[in-house]
């Protein structure tokens, strides 16, 4: 059935002379990335909003069919570039689910720590940018200074700050050092002070509360019906968190160290408060994970024939050399079952899932992404209708929509 082209010019009630159409974005400071909204306005009140997506479409999913499971990690990095490590971990979780392998305990813990650092990094940016759009620059600067420390931690582990490409099938690129653990301890000690600073600047700020309270309200039923996940659903009273509901990585073992932050407000203020509380809980997880970090290998054994062997094994042993060549020759690589799997992680914005269809080769036949931003941008018209133009930055900031992930 041919799809009907969406006519963006004619709006409901366009025959009414007092309504007019305003083009918001794709280049608008409040959208941060390339989002476009076509607004029908009655004075300053928004009667209708139509989001227009696709300005940052980069063909990531198609590249997933061209690159093998290890190479594609460099692309998923670039989807949600605010918390790239979380994407990598979710992608390789799906691949490992397809291959039916269980990673080592140490790898699980390191990945848990990295995923929580990514969550803090994402929430810090979201909270800071939301405040920035509403006129509070200072909280943004303090939050960004703390994100810098997270970048240093990731740089220390992987060798690159922004796009670490750190995970591999069945393990990590390399093991972490004791210095890395020290850096994390420093971070978990210094983070509560920064959190308190942001709380002092925003939580009791009458201007910030006036701009966010009662704006973009979402009820529990609507959140479920519109398949919201993550902090957006939890702030509307939906008690759901994949980390507790379907424990993956080390979350099952660390379940006692954290609680799920929920709120009943459903508005922009509730989303801000839930994110702030989630950061506190994330630090608790990191503290518990660092104290319980198991020793042992970070990658699977060479005999499992899934990991790139250590360089010493490649140079010195024939098994290592064979395994090394098996994984890099274009006509060998991974042997996968013909199967379809869906793997989802609770990332900072919500449920990030990968739907992976394998035809038995080393590349995915289809690597569909379920990005939280896509779902959350779809509810945006519902949240904004009836509010004023000046509420758009508040709602967009609270949803934390990343266009690279939205358009893929």
């Amino acid at each position, binding site marked *: 059935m041919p799809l009907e082209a969406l006519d963006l010019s004619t709006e409901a009630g366009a025959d009414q002379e007092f309504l007019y159409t305003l083009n918001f974005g794709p280049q608008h400071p409040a959208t941060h990335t390339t989002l476009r909204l076509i607004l029908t306005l009655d004075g300053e009140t928004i009667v209708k909003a139509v989001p227009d997506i696709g300005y940052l479409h980069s063909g990531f999913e198609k590249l997933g069919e061209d690159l093998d499971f290890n*190479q*594609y990690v*460099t*692309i998923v990095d670039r989807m949600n570039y605010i918390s790239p490590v979380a994407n990598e971990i979710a992608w390789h979780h799906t691949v490992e689910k397809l291959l039916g392998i269980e990673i080592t305990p140490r790898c699980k813990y390191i990945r848990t720590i990295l995923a929580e650092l990514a969550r803090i990094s994402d929430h810090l940016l979201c909270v800071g940018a939301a405040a920035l759009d509403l006129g509070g620059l*200072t909280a943004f600067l*303090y939050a960004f*200074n703390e994100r*810098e420390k997270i970048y240093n931690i990731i*740089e*220390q582990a*992987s*060798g*690159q700050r922004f*796009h670490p*490409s750190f995970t591999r099938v069945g393990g990590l*690129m*390399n093991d972490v050092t004791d210095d890395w653990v020290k850096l994390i301890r420093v971070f978990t000690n210094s983070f509560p002070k920064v959190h308190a*600073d942001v709380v*002092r*600047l925003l*939580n*009791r*700020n*009458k*201007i910030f*509360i006036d701009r966010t*309270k009662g704006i973009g309200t979402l009820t529990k039923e609507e959140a479920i019906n519109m398949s919201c996940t993550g902090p957006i659903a939890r*702030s509307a009273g939906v*008690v*759901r*968190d994949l980390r*507790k*509901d379907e*424990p993956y990585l080390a979350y099952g073992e660390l*379940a006692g160290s954290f*609680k*799920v*932050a*929920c*709120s*009943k*407000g459903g508005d922009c*203020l*509730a989303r801000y*408060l*839930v994110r*702030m*509380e989630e950061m506190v*809980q994330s630090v608790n997880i990191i503290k518990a994970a660092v104290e319980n970090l198991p020793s042992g290998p970070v990658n699977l054994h060479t005999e499992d024939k899934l990991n*790139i062997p250590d*360089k*010493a094994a*490649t*140079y010195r042993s024939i098994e290592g*050399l064979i395994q*090394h*060549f098996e994984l*890099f*020759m*274009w006509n060998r690589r991974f042997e996968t079952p013909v199967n379809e799997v869906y793997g989802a992680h609770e990332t900072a914005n919500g449920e990030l899932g990968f739907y992976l269809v394998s035809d038995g080769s080393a590349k995915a036949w289809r690597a569909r992404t379920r990005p939280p931003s896509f779902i959350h941008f779809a509810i945006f018209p519902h949240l904004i209708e009836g509010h004023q133009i000046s509420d758009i930055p508040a709602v967009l900031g609270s949803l934390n929509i990343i266009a690279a992930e939205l358009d893929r």
Partner: protein
Amino acid sequence: MPLTESDVTWVQEPKLGLLGQLYLPAIADGLMTTVGHMFKKKVTELYPEQEPKLPPNYRGVHRLNRDSEGRTKCVACYMCATACPAHCIDIVAAPAPEGWKDREKYPETFVIDELRCIYCGMCEEACPVDAIELTTLYDLTGLSREQMIFDKEKLLSVFDVTTKAGTDPVRTRSGELGPASEPPPAK
């Protein structure tokens, strides 16, 4: 495993009393926070004057390693070019010159497009003879696209520079020679 009430912490909205309804106390509180930060340690880095402290496993510009005789270690096996997700490595293999007893092939040309490269480190992961590595050089600039396309000589010169400066990469444990670089067993 469904969530129980004990797993959940319900976030409460901050209650603004009569004092909170006024703007002035919040302004004073905010100013105290920012003034407090003025006396803390400065976080700004003065970049060109102060070199950033990078970890030794930083992934920067590539280098082609030399063996003990000063020749390139590369055996033109194309593994790095195959592993590269950005397809930025271009190798032309040729029979090794007379007198190179330890290998049959060598790279006649070895070109890396540093503009295409995403510095993921998969080339050095794929290399079976410890020939290509990522160094800690990060301040890579050029005035034209041609300058950023590194050929074999330039990549070997990066090796000379980093060895002289003592900033050898640590990730692949450089210095340990691969089997292809060792002399063949005497018959």
